[in-house]
């Protein structure tokens, strides 16, 4: 949903119905696949989710702070290596970490090559009255931007692809995220699936009934009505779910099981990771 005007125009041929169906289907499929990889055996999959979430948060911070370009490149390559080491198919890593946000970022950053000021490297043109100058600082800026975004996206993708989402949720508690909030997140995620399926069915139903073109006014009324249907369904559902919770003794306070045990391997992972990230930071500061 990192929608840009360009991507909107490029896909404008398809109707809003087909595009919604495709989008919803892709979202469901993507998460179901992520669960499949998270269930497979692998080095990162085995790490305690709390250890993983904590270390990955630190890694995101370091990736955000680092100035040095080679260091950023090293971080990114290291993460790609980690992905392969944990037995994620290379195709999946490539799709997740190079298409999508990084590709979008590349397109976004392209004009910056000609806009950022510095020592001129080369000039294109003049074509007519147009001359484009690319400076050294422009190249460095764009490279820094792209590498930082790619490394961050790779980190996030590795975390999601190797952690079952129920574990990820529970691991949020180490950030002192309140239990109520964790429960709301989990329940939201669970009912997102239900409502996405409902959305898919609403749009499929329309696609199967629609022959030829419909007026734009009718289309908008229909979209409005679908949103309304979804809303009344969610409101009714929330009352029913509340009743189901009360029927099982819920009184407003949430009680949960602590399910994780940190093993020595997890401590090793955390301490090694912290050491490496700290070292990277130190190297960056010394440059």
């Amino acid at each position: 949903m990192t929608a840009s005007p360009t991507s909107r125009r490029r896909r404008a041929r398809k109707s809003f119905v087909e595009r919604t169906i495709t989008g919803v289907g892709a979202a469901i499929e993507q998460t179901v696949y992520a669960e499949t990889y998270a269930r497979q055996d692998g080095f990162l999959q085995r790490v305690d989710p709390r250890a993983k979430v904590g270390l990955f948060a630190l890694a995101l911070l370091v990736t955000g702070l680092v100035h040095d370009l080679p260091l950023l490149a090293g971080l990114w390559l290291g993460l790609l290596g980690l992905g392969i080491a944990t037995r994620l198919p290379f195709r999946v890593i490539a799709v997740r970490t190079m298409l999508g946000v990084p590709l979008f970022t590349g397109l976004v950053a392209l004009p910056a090559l000609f806009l950022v000021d510095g020592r001129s490297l080369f000039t294109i043109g003049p074509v007519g009255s147009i001359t484009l100058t690319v400076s050294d600082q422009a190249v460095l800026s764009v490279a820094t931007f792209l590498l930082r975004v790619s490394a961050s996206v790779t980190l996030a993708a590795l975390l999601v692809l190797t952690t079952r989402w129920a574990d990820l949720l529970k691991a949020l508690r180490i950030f002192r995220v309140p239990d109520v909030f964790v429960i709301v997140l989990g329940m939201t995620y669970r009912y997102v699936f239900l409502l996405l399926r409902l959305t898919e069915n609403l749009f499929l139903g329309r696609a199967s009934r629609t022959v030829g073109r419909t007026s734009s006014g009718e289309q908008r009324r229909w979209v409005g009505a679908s949103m309304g249907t979804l809303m009344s369904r969610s409101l009714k559902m929330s009352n029913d779910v509340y009743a189901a919770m009360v029927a099982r003794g819920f009184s407003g306070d949430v009680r949960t099981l602590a399910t994780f045990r940190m093993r020595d391997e997890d401590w090793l992972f955390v301490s090694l990771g912290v050491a490496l990230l700290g070292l990277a930071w130190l190297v960056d500061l010394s440059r």
Partner: protein
Amino acid sequence: MHIPDGYISPATALAFYGAVLPFWWAAGQRLKRVLTGQLVPALALFSAFTFAIMMFNIPVPGGTTAHAVGGTLAAVVLGPWAAIISVSVALIIQALFFGDGGITAIGANCFILGVALPLTGYGVYRLVSGRSDPLSRRRLLAAAIGAYVGINVAGLLVGLALGIQPIFWSENGRALYSPYGLREAVPAMLIPHLTIAGAAEVIATVFGLAYVQRAHPELLERRAATARVAPSARRLTLAIFVLLALFSPLGLLATGSAWGEWGSDELAQRVGYVPRGLEELESLWSAPLPDYTLPWMTETASFAEQALAYILSAIVGIALIFATTFALRILLRPRQGQQATAGG
């Protein structure tokens, strides 16, 4: 629309987390009182609903389609506090599990789309709709204006957040994060929001609300009757004022090229070329406040003087927005007990 990881510096991201937390806390406290035990399932289902409507492709004029956030719609039907939480939770789920929007940028995205958008949208909606019947067409018009203002405030904030990056975080002329300054980032975000994204948001809000008016009037009537989940219009007005005033000084950073920014004149001198679109955008953008300094200020005015002048002009601008809103209210006021049917 969503800010991905790596686009803004960790310091910016942290500042946004700091900005969004009080709103989450206040919303949580308010909702806990109103929903009591039902808090958890109600928020979960509201959030799931918000997530689902973000997946809708909305047909907009011109044959294209776009996604809507639905923040104003959620605020109008569920109440502004519930909207803050449900849009935020939907965004967090998107960032954590669906890879949409960055994890470090969660604070920024939630503040912009989950707090600023629904609050401005709802505030304008309340101001324009006044005491009209919750099922009247005037409410639809009010929601349309609210949704449009809300989504554009969000677009502006994203532009500002990205645009300040090269100003603060550059090293020897190398941008460390998003490389575009305010003069590129703000128009680049505002133009699509004024057009395509704005249209999608308005369409989703108006047609969604029209359906709720028709099929579930009890939802709107109950809200109008109790209005317990809603902060008063007066307090909302104040909140929006403070919000806008807080962000307006960001424009200060754009004063002059000393900050590493280029006007089209300077760009023309340096590059020998100005993209036509950029030139047009710039005239559009900088027309009200040429070069971000005020016409009556001398070139030699100190930074503090310029800052004061800028803040004052921001206050004038905001006051004008409010004046327009109230003028609309007066124009739309039903005449002598006549039912409000304005907006058709």
